[in-house]
């Protein structure tokens, strides 16, 4: 009788040694005359417990973690394969408070199944959403997405159903579904986890989008920094095609939809939707002036849906369970759930999917357990490099779109990066400008020149040179970038800079710095 053991193949788990753990488990159990069936899953998202090993026992899956390769001999000796007691034993991981208190809709399968096991995907409700979308027909399927209240999870939070409606209304002809998987914001990794842990949900979501708006071709624009997701997605697409879930006759409906993955090449700006379309066409990722909107004239000039990974992967569940069920989660205009990502200097980093409304403090303390260094958390940056820095006095703000907008911050893609009290906010402001200069596509002057001058001025402040004049310059540059940039890169880089200036002025005051 072989024992099934799950060890994540997720890149985050691999970065913490999961492969060595898996190989040690295989080799050492074999040496002990025990047969182990090694299976790979996505990560449950409790990264401080990775590599998280789960053993299938008659009483269910029993978790151990974090299991380093060096822990394996002791674990095996003490009966890991029988689910026996050990200091690293966690029991049923789904009963762990960190996971049990979450509301996992989009991430329902991640960590539970083998990402490439299509039968397991279907057995757990997969492709029920597509079947229902086909039965409903285009208008009703789009209306379902509209009624769910789903808003773009990439960061812009635009109502997904309205985008789809616009594409549906365009004259029949070539249309495209594109998935923005250029997850470049620091502190975010939910797209990566989803693609590595449940790729069929993204494939099904794109297929639903295709049949709903009359598009026959889909592209995933994936960042080159995600080689693991690239392999998993391609393998999953091949399996879906083989099973007739992609191709000329999707699910026997007579409708065609197929898709491919395109790799980016290390440009943050390509996460901006028009820049992404340029890149998909094989060009420099320079942004396009809107209008026309991509929904009217997008990829190769055709009507195009551009949605983020999480948005699209959430759609199958909405179609399967109905708009009302999804809409019941969340508050105000933020409906459904959001996979938040805890990052930076944090004790328990990982993925927290909950209905909108959790406060920053609840996330940092109840889930995050405070800073990793043990020092007070002085600032958090929410929403990536273009997101505002929040001081501790704002930690009671709920993590939802409007509440954050009200304090001049943004939720973005849901990444929350914690900094302890050793952070130098002047340096973080300077870095924001430096990053913008590094990533600017160069098309508009406020972004191209403003970011370079901004970084220079903030560096000068750091050296104590002409502080007051430089501060005026920084404010003026921020104002120009904010109001005159063509896209969000130049237009939002002022958010981290201005919020740092506003909430942490002491870090910008004249003092002997750097010496």
């Amino acid at each position, binding site marked *: 009788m072989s024992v099934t053991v799950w060890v994540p193949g997720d890149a985050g788990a691999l970065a913490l040694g999961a492969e060595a753990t898996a190989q040690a488990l295989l080799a050492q159990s074999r040496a002990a005359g025990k047969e182990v069936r090694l299976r790979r899953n996505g990560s449950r998202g409790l990264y401080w417990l990775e590599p998280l090993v789960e053993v299938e026992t008659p009483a269910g899956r029993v978790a151990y973690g974090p299991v380093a390769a060096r822990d394996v001999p002791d674990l095996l000796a003490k009966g890991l394969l029988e689910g026996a007691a050990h200091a690293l034993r966690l029991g049923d991981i789904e009963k762990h408070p960190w996971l049990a208190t979450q509301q996992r809709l989009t991430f329902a399968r991640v960590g539970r199944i083998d990402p490439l096991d299509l039968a397991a995907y279907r057995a757990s409700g997969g492709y029920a959403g597509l079947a229902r979308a086909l039965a409903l027909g285009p208008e009703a399927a789009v209306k379902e997405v509209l009624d769910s209240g789903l808003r773009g999870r990439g960061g812009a939070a635009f109502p997904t159903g309205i985008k789809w409606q616009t594409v549906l209304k365009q004259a029949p002809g070539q249309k495209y579904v594109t998935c923005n998987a250029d997850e470049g914001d*620091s502190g975010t990794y939910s797209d990566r986890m989803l693609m590595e842990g449940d790729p069929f949900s993204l494939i099904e979501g794109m297929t639903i989008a295709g049949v709903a708006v009359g598009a026959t071709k889909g592209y995933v624009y994936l960042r080159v*920094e995600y080689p693991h997701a690239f392999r998993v997605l391609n393998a999953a697409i091949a399996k879906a095609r083989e099973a007739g879930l992609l191709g000329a006759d999707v699910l026997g409906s007579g409708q065609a939809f197929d898709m491919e993955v395109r790799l980016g090449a290390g440009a943050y700006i390509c996460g901006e939707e028009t820049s992404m379309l340029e890149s998909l066409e094989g060009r420099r990722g*320079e942004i396009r002036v809107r209008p026309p909107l991509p929904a009217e004239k997008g990829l190769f000039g055709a009507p195009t849906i551009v949605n983020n990974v999480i948005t699209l992967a959430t759609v199958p569940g909405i179609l399967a369970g109905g708009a009302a069920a999804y809409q019941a989660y969340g508050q105000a205009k933020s409906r459904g759930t959001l996979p938040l990502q805890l990052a930076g200097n944090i004790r328990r980093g990982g993925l927290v999917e909950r209905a909108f409304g959790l406060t920053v403090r609840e996330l940092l303390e109840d889930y995050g357990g405070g800073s990793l260094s043990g020092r007070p958390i002085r600032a958090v940056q929410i929403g990536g490099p273009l997101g505002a820095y929040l001081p501790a006095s704002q930690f009671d703000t709920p993590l939802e779109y409007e509440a954050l907008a009200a304090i001049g911050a943004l939720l973005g893609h849901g990444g929350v990066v914690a900094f302890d009290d050793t952070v130098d906010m002047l340096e973080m402001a300077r870095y924001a400008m430096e990053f913008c200069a590094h990533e600017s596509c160069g098309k508009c002057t406020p972004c191209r020149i403003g970011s370079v001058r901004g970084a220079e001025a903030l560096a000068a402040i750091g050296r104590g040179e002409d502080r007051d004049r430089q501060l005026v310059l920084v404010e003026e540059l921020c104002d120009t970038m904010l109001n005159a940039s063509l896209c969000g890169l130049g237009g939002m880089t002022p958010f981290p800079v201005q919020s740092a200036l506003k909430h942490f002025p002491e870090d910008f005051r004249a003092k002997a710095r750097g010496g």
Partner: protein
Amino acid sequence: MNAVTTPSEDEARILAAVERHSHRDGPLIEVLHEVQAAFGCIPAGSVPVIARALNLSRAEVHGVVTFYHHFRSKAPGRHVLQICRAESCQAAGGKAIEAHAKKRLGIEFGQTSADGRVTLEAVYCLGLCACSPAAMLDGEVHGRVTRESLDSLIDAGAGVKP
């Protein structure tokens, strides 16, 4: 270009890469990925070959090559070590790791160690932010990097026993 092959062999490899992607719409970036996989960089001599084969101007191809940080103009060392510079890694001590790598290898970002073994590159987020600071060596990911673990990575990458 690679010294062990002749210019015409190189050209054949480039044309084969173009051929493999010519059925696709907007194939240039896909072609460049393949060329870089074959040569370690986008050799200057490949630009006119790709341009002609895809019916683009040399300026268009050059423009794309130079726009994207991922495409290199020079072949890297035998190993490529990428260290994340983004905020999450900074919050977890990434700058010290970055400084240590530069000092240890005696180079800056974008350079190759004098023995030609390791090229050091900056990267802006590897999506491993729950285990910052992060690095990638030859496509293998590493989280919660410390000075010591970085040293053993460099030693392993350099083929030296720690």
